[in-house]
């Protein structure tokens, strides 16, 4: 036993030293990394809801689909409630896609879409992150579920698919439909008052 310890003193000493150094690094950088994660959502709020101010955004817990989930209530500079940002996730072509969806005060119109996380095929499916695709959701009414088409849309619930990435386009649309429907059910009658 003692022989092993004598042989391994360098390993033990290094492990202690590195451990202490890494603890110091973590305590310096940890809060910043946490902040990056939170900012990723909060930074998007003004882009997802017109007029919203990042600093005034409030995180609420709503009972959605049987479980407590965080939603973000967006306010403008004068403190007026202007809309909501909700998080949604679902299976994509490759892995789980995580979205942020901007909605107006009553959840009747989609005001913006942002992709937080995706592992879709580079240069095909991962074009879902580009504004050209995300913009197709802006202004869509939520009264009817959205549908993906391969031709230029004619009805106001149609979303033009990314060519070569129909599955990814459909996944995003399905996630949006499900999340918006659940959120509207959870929203107290009369919308955000």
């Amino acid at each position: 036993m003692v022989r092993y310890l004598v042989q391994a003193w360098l390993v033990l000493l290094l492990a202690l030293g590195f451990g202490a150094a890494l603890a110091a690094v973590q305590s310096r950088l940890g809060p910043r990394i946490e902040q990056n994660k939170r900012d990723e959502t909060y930074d998007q709020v003004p882009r997802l809801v017109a007029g919203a101010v990042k600093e005034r955004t409030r995180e609420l817990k709503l009972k959605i689909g049987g479980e407590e989930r965080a939603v973000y209530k967006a306010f403008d500079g004068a403190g007026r409630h202007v809309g909501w940002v909700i998080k949604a996730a679902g299976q994509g072509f490759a892995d789980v896609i995580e979205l942020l969806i901007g909605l107006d005060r009553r959840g009747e119109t989609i005001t913006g879409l942002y992709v937080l996380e995706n592992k879709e095929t580079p240069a095909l499916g991962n074009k879902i992150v580009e504004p050209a695709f995300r913009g197709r959701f802006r202004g869509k009414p939520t009264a009817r579920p959205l549908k993906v088409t391969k031709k230029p849309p004619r009805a106001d619930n149609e979303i033009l698919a990314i060519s070569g990435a129909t599955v990814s386009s459909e996944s995003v649309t399905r996630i949006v439909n499900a999340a918006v429907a659940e959120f509207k059910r959870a929203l107290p009658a009369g919308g955000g008052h």
Partner: protein
Amino acid sequence: MAKDGPTPLERFIQGILPENPVYRQLLGMCPTLAVTGNMKAAMTMSGAVLFVLLGANLMVSLIRGLLKPHLRILVFTLTIAAFVTVADKFIAAYMWEMSKELGPYVPLIIVNCIIICRCEVCASKQGPVAAAADAVGQSLGFALALASIATVREVLGSGTWFGIDLGWRAAAYDNYKLVLMALPPGAFITLGLLLGGANWMASARRRRRPQA
């Protein structure tokens, strides 16, 4: 002890081309294939490898007199893991988007053979100056190799370089379907062709100077 082994300058130069970690030693193939879809990711990975290799080589060189043969690999791995964790946290704190793009490949530097190989071949036998020169030379060689592959793949696959649009993006995307180059097969094809090219040049040089 002092006289055997290459000098720091030799170590530095060898790492760049004559003993290039990717093209000559075929080490570190995992990041070479995985993060060369674009220049930004490739250069961030190269920077992280430089930091880890420099840190690990210096540390190992300084304690080389204390190393026991049967525990040395354990010491190398421990040292490398510590520096990799610092690099990973740093990228997550200051380059959040890039940290998401590189995903597991920064933590995976721990098992990058280039680093353990340099600890074994150079740092555990030579002084800190030679070890540092070796680390910088090998990292430059690694960066050069990644840049060559990433340039081919990004220019052909995405029509950009360092994210800058080269003006034929739409053509590359839609007409020629070179999107393959941005996907994993593109990595294998590019690496294979460039590796073949490097070998061909080396053998051509040998033919010209048979004694070398």
